[in-house]
């Protein structure tokens, strides 16, 4: 598709690939101050004691020995919680999961606080714990329970978090008349993945009279402002929340209880600044778990592999999303039924992997399609190509158009670049010259990232007298996403990117709500606000220009003007021109705009069309998301079980690219993550309970540069013109999650067996077990 020419944005725009994060040079010289880098006079340090049981009532906490340690100022527990803190997730009386914070030690330095933690004695009345999802699944009553009943929350009697049923067409009839059906019930449990931002969970707070100042690493600064207000009752105008930076968001900085802990601790020491800081061990216990999931899938096809029906029963713990979007927004399936259940366990429920939604469900999708293709004597790419949705198809349930539908183009790209059709072979049938087994796999899906949500989001753009623009929004730091906003402003105003600054960010006092930064919704929603604010500025600048001698001499009107590279010019005669600096320095009135986020937004987060598409008018609600496709080629050593990735092709539907290198970073790092998840990741478990108790990076076997072969990754951003997003853009989120599924599929193609990935990666032991050699 031919995309309109842009001045600053886009893959094809000269110079866009040279744009760097506005944070870059500061980071390279050690200047930025994250939360833990802040230091106030008289500052104290707080460390939490964490529960060492899965489920229990605390009968006694004895802090007397801890209080004797020189430098320990105070020890707080549930019993010292203020009234407002009793319903908030800070210090627990009933332990809901291993690692829950139960006491807080405040001391003059962090080491003293850590030492004192070990001296706090806790007596527990241990309660029965549910750790394994299988324990709940084995309970027939639980699995057949009326799923329409509302749930009252995390600690209600039920282990159900939510559940739902969706139906399309007549699944039973379609399956009955299908030429081919298969039920896949032995799907392995997928990996539970732990992904922690490098910056520890921490927050700093102090009180000044009845005003509170809080520093947190946030992906939603105004959301934190509001939630702290809701929890504590502190008036919004007396609550000042700042996010000076974010050392890895990864979806974990959306609802930080650390801020509440710091506010609480500071209050208890007469308002002195307190830095509450999790140790890495406690950060790992406290959060960062991917959910696990299992599904039973029945597929019906006609004799040519055209899907006619799909029946899915799906269960997961934590925040796992259902499998429906993967199937339903990727493939055309006329009849579909989905029964999904999410469970609460006595386990950490804070998922933190990059893309919490899709790897497990994507794997189920890939596994099922590959098996069906094999039964029908088709290649894996053929069954996908036969059923994949087209660029102009509407959502099969809602009937809404998609802002962009790029999955087809992504699949075409990786199949073509990899030469998949000529390399694929029947599973377990090809050896390389060195004796290793060759495999190749494919995956594609449309996922829920990149949505546009939040009409309440707003951005301020100001023109300064020197002709530069200042973008002020609620983003937390001038990382990639704030840099994107600057690029949008530059595009609309016709400024050089160097003439746009982001001087204020992460500040609840001085910015408007920039919205949530997780899940890429920032790009579209806040990008829309930035675009509108910049449009207002451009209008005012052009009006001011018409009063300037240069343009008044030719009787120019605002509509006669255009701008590029920080110069305003007459469209019909570009030699009549003036710089932004000349116009802004002589303008009589201040020039600025406040842009509001996209309107026509549904409660479920869908956005409205900003331009007509396929007969749908402006304002019509849309389905959003982004797409990916992957092909991976592997070599498997049948003697050692070692897997080597030979080549990996990843294509991502990006909408209009705003920031080229940011997109490539996201794709490259996403691909590496998938390698980590598929081949390396591990966990340390408590054998009796099955609980994951690993608290160190080394135990999780995180990938390093030694495991990474960048020259083997081939990345293809597939630009599309999103009719909902600003200037055709949408967020790309974490669409590279297909890599995990693709690698596992490639291993299957190599050895002819599905490796049991029960809560673990395809490490050599598991591969050998699949080969019957373990």
């Amino acid at each position: 598709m031919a995309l309109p020419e842009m001045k600053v944005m886009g893959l094809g725009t000269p110079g866009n690939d040279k744009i760097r994060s506005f944070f870059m040079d500061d980071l390279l010289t050690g200047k930025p101050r994250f939360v833990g880098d802040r230091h106030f006079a008289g500052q104290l340090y707080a460390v939490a004691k964490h529960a060492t049981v899965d489920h229990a009532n605390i009968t006694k906490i004895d802090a007397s020995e801890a209080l004797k340690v020189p430098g320990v100022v105070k020890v707080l527990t549930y019993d010292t919680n203020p009234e407002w803190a009793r319903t908030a997730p800070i210090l627990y009386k009933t332990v809901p999961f291993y690692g829950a914070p139960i006491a807080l030690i405040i001391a003059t330095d962090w080491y003293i606080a850590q030492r004192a933690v070990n001296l706090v004695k806790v007596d527990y009345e241990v309660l029965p714990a549910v750790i394994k999802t299988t324990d709940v699944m084995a309970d027939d009553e639980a699995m057949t329970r009326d799923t329409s009943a509302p749930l009252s929350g995390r600690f209600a009697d039920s282990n159900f978090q939510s559940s739902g049923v969706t139906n399309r067409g007549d699944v039973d009839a379609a399956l009955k008349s299908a030429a081919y059906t298969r039920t896949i019930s032995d799907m392995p449990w997928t990996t539970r993945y732990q992904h922690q931002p490098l910056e520890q969970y921490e927050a700093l707070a102090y009180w000044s009279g009845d005003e509170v100042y809080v520093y947190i690493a946030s992906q939603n600064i105004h959301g934190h402002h509001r939630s702290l207000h809701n929890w504590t009752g502190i008036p919004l105008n007396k609550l000042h929340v700042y996010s000076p930076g974010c050392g890895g968001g990864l979806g974990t900085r959306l609802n930080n209880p650390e801020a509440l802990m710091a506010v609480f601790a500071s209050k208890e020491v007469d308002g002195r600044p307190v830095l509450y800081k999790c140790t890495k061990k406690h950060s790992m216990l406290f959060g960062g778990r991917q959910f696990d999931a299992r599904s039973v899938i029945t597929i019906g096809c006609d004799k040519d592999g055209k899907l006619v029906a799909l029946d899915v029963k799906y269960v997961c713990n934590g925040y796992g999303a259902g499998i429906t979007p993967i199937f339903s927004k990727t493939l055309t399936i006329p009849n579909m039924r989905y029964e999904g259940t999410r469970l609460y366990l006595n386990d950490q429920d804070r998922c933190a992997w990059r893309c919490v939604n899709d790897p497990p469900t994507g794997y189920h999708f890939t596994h099922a399609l590959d098996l069906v293709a094999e039964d029908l004597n088709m290649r894996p790419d053929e069954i996908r190509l036969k059923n994949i949705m087209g660029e102009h198809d509407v959502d099969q349930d809602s009937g809404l158009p998609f802002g962009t539908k790029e999955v087809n183009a992504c699949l075409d790209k990786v199949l073509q670049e990899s030469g998949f059709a000529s390399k694929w072979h029947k599973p377990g049938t090809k050896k390389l010259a060195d004796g290793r087994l060759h495999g190749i796999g494919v995956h594609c899906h449309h996922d829920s990232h990149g949505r546009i949500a939040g009409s309440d989001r707003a951005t301020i753009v100001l023109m300064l007298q020197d002709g530069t623009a200042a973008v002020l929004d609620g983003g937390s730091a001038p990382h990639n996403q704030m840099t994107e906003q600057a690029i949008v402003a530059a595009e609309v105003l016709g400024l050089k990117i160097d003439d746009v600054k982001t001087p204020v960010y992460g500040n609840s006092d001085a910015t408007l709500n920039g919205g949530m930064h997780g899940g890429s919704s920032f790009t579209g929603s806040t990008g829309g606000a930035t675009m509108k604010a910049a449009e207002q500025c451009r209008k005012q600048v052009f009006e001011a220009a018409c009063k300037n001698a240069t343009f008044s001499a030719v009787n120019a009107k605002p509509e006669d003007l255009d701008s590029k590279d920080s110069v305003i010019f007459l469209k019909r005669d570009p030699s009549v021109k003036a710089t932004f600096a000349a116009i802004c320095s002589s303008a009589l009135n201040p020039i600025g705009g406040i842009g509001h986020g996209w309107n026509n937004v549904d409660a479920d987060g869908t956005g409205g069309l900003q331009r007509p598409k396929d007969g749908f008018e402006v304002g019509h609600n849309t389905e959003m998301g982004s797409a990916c496709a992957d092909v991976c080629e592997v070599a498997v050593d049948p003697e050692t079980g070692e897997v080597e990735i030979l080549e990996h092709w990843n294509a991502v539907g990006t909408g209009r690219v705003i920031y080229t290198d940011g997109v490539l970073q996201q794709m490259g790092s996403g691909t590496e993550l998938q390698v980590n998840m598929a081949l390396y990741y591990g966990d340390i478990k408590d054998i009796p309970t099955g609980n994951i108790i690993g608290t160190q990076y080394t135990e999780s076997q995180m990938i390093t540069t030694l495991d990474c072969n960048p020259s083997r990754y081939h990345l293809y951003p597939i630009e599309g013109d999103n009719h909902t997003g600003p200037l055709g853009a949408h967020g790309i989120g974490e669409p590279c999650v297909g890599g995990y599924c693709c690698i596992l599929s490639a291993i299957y193609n190599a050895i002819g067996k599905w490796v049991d990935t029960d809560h673990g990666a395809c490490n050599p032991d598991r591969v050998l077990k699949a080969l019957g050699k373990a």
Partner: protein
Amino acid sequence: MSKETNLVSRREFLKDAGLVVGGATVGSAALLSACKNNGKSGSVTKYVCPLDSKEFDSLQALKDHYASAHEGVALPDFKTLNINGVDYSLIINDYWSLAWVLRETLGLYGTKVGCDMGQCGACTVIVDDKPMYACLLFACEMEGKKIRTVEGLADYGNKLNKVQQAFHDANATQCGFCTSGFLMAAQALIERNSSPSEDEVRHALSGHLCMCQNFKKTIEAVVAAGGK
């Protein structure tokens, strides 16, 4: 409102002023005493108790306070650390890590602490030309060593050095929390091997985690810095 004390780099301030500043000025709970700037002793403005942050105008006053308020707790000895070519004479508690002293005492917050247990590499500094995890080093044992931090790679406001520029060109940061550690390891590598291969780079950086998983661009940057 509390006064944030380290908005301006303390190193920068110390370098310019040639003075020692204590907790009252910098707000540190640490105890900082006489500083030598390239052999020139500065004067002390404040002494701060590391246990309760109370401030005193003289060392004797601090000692008296220590004796009465923290009976039985010994006042640590003075140690001299050479950081980025500058000698600092400090009183250091024996359990403080080098990372803690760099950050909390000297305000060199470019050295990040990710795991504080020697696994992530974010706190890497160069000690006598070798990259080392500052979270695992006791500061009190660093006398006589030459320590370099990310702040010492290029002067503030001046041109980036070769490794930093290569990181810039390759866009080798994402959230940036691991960047200082990677930079220091890369700098040490380039100093001992001016033109490392990709494989050598991957080995040299393997003690570092990037949870954004931006390894590809980091490796490209270091290879480019060496010109291979």
